[in-house]
């Protein structure tokens, strides 16, 4: 059994919904300010990648998990580390390999002999027991191991020897996939992918950004993010995010987008009919709504707009469309299909002729 990679720190900040003084005082304005501060602290370490950072923060506020897809070396681990430090929350990193076992993730019971010679079984939590978890190259582990982690993601708890142990809150898994080197991998099945709130594409940095990265990482000076929040603050922000109101027509628009992603639906665009085998599940709607709420509160707006929904459509739906071989043959990505969806299902209008 291969042990998880280092950097594993056990959770220390709570086992459910951590109480914090900041949670009581959380307001929309303070939430927006805190998010801006976190973003700024991350920006001190991470060069560029603003959109990716925002996606991660949206997933954090929505208390969802995010799947990152990008080649190695783009700063995914550093991003999670910077996020952890700015939030003052424990984090762990699990490097998935084919021989990784479920117990390596969720933890196990070991036989412990006390000073008095008495032996007892003690639970040793796995790396999943952290507020922030980086599941690196999750598609390299076997489905059995993947399933163990994804179950923990979904249930936010692990069950060892018949005992269920809740995971600390807030809890977010940031899994990565390497789009290259697909040989010998176990792509995540659709049902597992559905458990990720968002899927973000980690872009290659621009030349200017790369220059800055080189300057920062090859010198002697190191920059450490300062903690600007804690687990209690984040939990309060998560709770507040859930309270952001969503107008009816906005919810309706999200639903329209998801139902139109099904190839047999009358509003489905031609590309969906041609390339998609199965459309997004109801979790897709939930993902869009939660992401849109997070977007609104991050922007300091008190309610969700249609634009928030449409902005959340690509990251929330791109991994939820099950495409056929025709899409691969025609080099049509799920991003293209979601864009076609957005083009087909336009923003709801007033319904008054001549009016916007």
């Amino acid at each position, binding site marked *: 059994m291969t042990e998880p990679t280092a950097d594993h720190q056990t959770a220390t900040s709570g086992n459910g919904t951590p109480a914090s003084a900041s949670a009581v005082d959380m307001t929309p304005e303070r939430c927006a300010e805190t998010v801006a501060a976190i973003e700024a602290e991350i920006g001190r370490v991470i060069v560029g990648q603003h959109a990716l950072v925002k996606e991660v923060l949206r997933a954090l506020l929505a208390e969802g998990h995010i799947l990152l897809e990008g080649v190695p070396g783009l700063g995914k681990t550093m991003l999670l580390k910077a996020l952890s430090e700015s939030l003052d929350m424990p984090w762990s990193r699990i490097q998935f390999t084919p021989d990784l076992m479920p117990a390596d993730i969720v933890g196990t019971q070991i036989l412990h002999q006390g000073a008095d010679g008495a032996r007892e079984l003690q639970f040793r939590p796995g790396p999943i027991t952290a507020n922030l978890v980086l599941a690196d190259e999750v598609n390299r582990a076997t489905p059995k191991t993947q399933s163990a982690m994804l179950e923990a993601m979904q249930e936010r708890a692990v069950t060892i020897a018949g005992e269920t142990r809740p995971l600390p809150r807030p809890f977010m898994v940031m899994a990565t996939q390497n789009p290259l080197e697909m040989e010998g991998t176990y792509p995540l099945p659709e049902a597992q992918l559905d458990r990720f709130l968002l899927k973000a594409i980690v872009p290659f940095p621009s030349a200017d950004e790369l220059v800055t990265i080189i300057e920062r990482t090859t010198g002697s000076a190191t920059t450490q993010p300062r903690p600007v929040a804690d687990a209690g603050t984040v939990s309060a922000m998560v709770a507040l995010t859930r309270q952001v109101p969503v107008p009816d027509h906005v919810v309706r628009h999200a639903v329209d987008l998801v139902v139109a992603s099904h190839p047999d639906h009358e509003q489905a665009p031609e590309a969906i009919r041609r390339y998609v085998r199965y459309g997004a599940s109801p979790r897709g709607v939930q993902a869009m709504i939660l992401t849109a709420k997070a977007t609104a509160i991050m922007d300091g707006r008190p*309610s969700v707009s249609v634009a928030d929904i449409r902005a959340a459509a690509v990251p929330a739906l791109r991994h939820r469309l099950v495409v056929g071989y025709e899409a691969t043959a025609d080099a049509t990505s799920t991003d293209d299909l979601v864009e076609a969806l957005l083009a087909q299902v336009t*923003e709801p209008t007033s319904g*008054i*002729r001549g009016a916007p």
Partner: protein
Amino acid sequence: MIESFLGRLRRRLRLVWAWATTAWVAPVVATVVVATVAVGWLLPWGWPEPAAFGVLGVVLSLVGVGAAVQRLPSAAVARAADRGLATGDSFAAALQFRGSGGPFAEAIEQRAEAVATGADPAQAAPFRSYQRRWLLSGALLTLALGLAVAPNPQDQVRADRAATNELLEATADRLDEEAEALAESPENEPIVDQVTTLAQELRQADDLAAAQQLLDDAQRTLASARPDNFASQRAATEGLDRSLADRPLSGPAGQQAKPAAQQLADTADDLGQLSPEDQAALDKLAERLGDLAATQSAGNPAVADALAEAAAALGAGDVAGAQAALGEAALAQGAAAGAVAAQLGANQAAGALANAQAALGKAAAGQGQGAGQGQGQGQGAGPGQGAGQGQGQGAGQGQGGGGGAQGQVSGAAGGTGSGRGGAGTSRGGDQARIDSNDGATIIDPLSLTPGDETSLGGVPGGASAEVIGQGDGPTTAGLARVPLAEIVGQYADRATTAADQQRLAPSQRRLVGDYFDLLSQ
């Protein structure tokens, strides 16, 4: 502030809706207008052009009404404001979550208030240009206007039709006036109904030919209802009235202006007061009644018989019988006077119809001028009247006139239609008879030589001919001695029959009728 802004925006949205709807329907309406106006170029209908632009008015009115009554829910107005001002659904959220509580309610309200402050509804709901639609619609409407203004091959047809309708209306009005005049006499009630109905039918007639046909039918109906012996009946009836007015059966002349029927009735009553000693007066009365009976034998045989019977009874001293006979004579005279009055009303109506027919005929001739062909033929000798008939081709009616031995009507060829020959007067020649198409004969007494027989109603000497006398030439006393009062009725009847058969113009037929009417008086 939010409500105020949304209220202003709602009014603005009604205008935007009207504008957009108009732009949306404009090409369709413009196409309909062009098609309708084009119909006016192809068919001689009068309604296409007014209807085409009426459609425009109706559509615009409907759009206006629709904009006024259009239901604009607050959520829709808020959505329009959000989209128009890019507020991030501020108004929609404010409307939905107002008063809902929670940490965001106040912020939502304040955000919407801030957006509404100073916001311009025109900016939220601008008028779109719809440039292509308006260009297309404008081009089509310009085309429609051009087609409506440009000279139209159907314009003349429509103008002619309008003139025809105006003429028919005027003719019907004159007939109505005539009916009102006739209605003053209760005996004319059936005629009044006929004339009134005819006026209505004329107003609904499709064209002049149909109107003329109606008038022809009406005239034919009136003519058929006219008694054959009307002239003699009228002469006898009115002659009896005049005779008794000049010489009353009792009392001094001129003092009694009572009609004959009344005098006869009074005389019957007076007979009861006479004693047998007044035999001389009875004989005198009998003789007078006998003379009167003789004057009534041709035109008023019922009165003549009754008077003759009364005279005979008086001669026999049968006063009661004489009273009864005089009573019958009075009744017969009254009935005859009523019939004559009714017929005179019919004659008056016939005259009005004839005038209407003439007016329509003149208009028809005017319409057919230069577009018809016709031929007329007439033969005549000496003073007389000839009739011409013509058949024409062309879009109208031709007019022909018989002049001398032959009348001809000609017109420029064009189209296909029917022509009607007119009437002409022919003179010259030394033939005493003018042979008409149906063989009726009009006698010229001046051309007769002594001993010539005159006949009526057919070819002289034929089975249908009736010898009415012998001519005595212009200066020679004839052998025939027939009292005018006895023969004028037959003359009138024959002349009327002949005139009808000759298909003379109504005015000329009326002239013949008037002549014999005057002659009988």
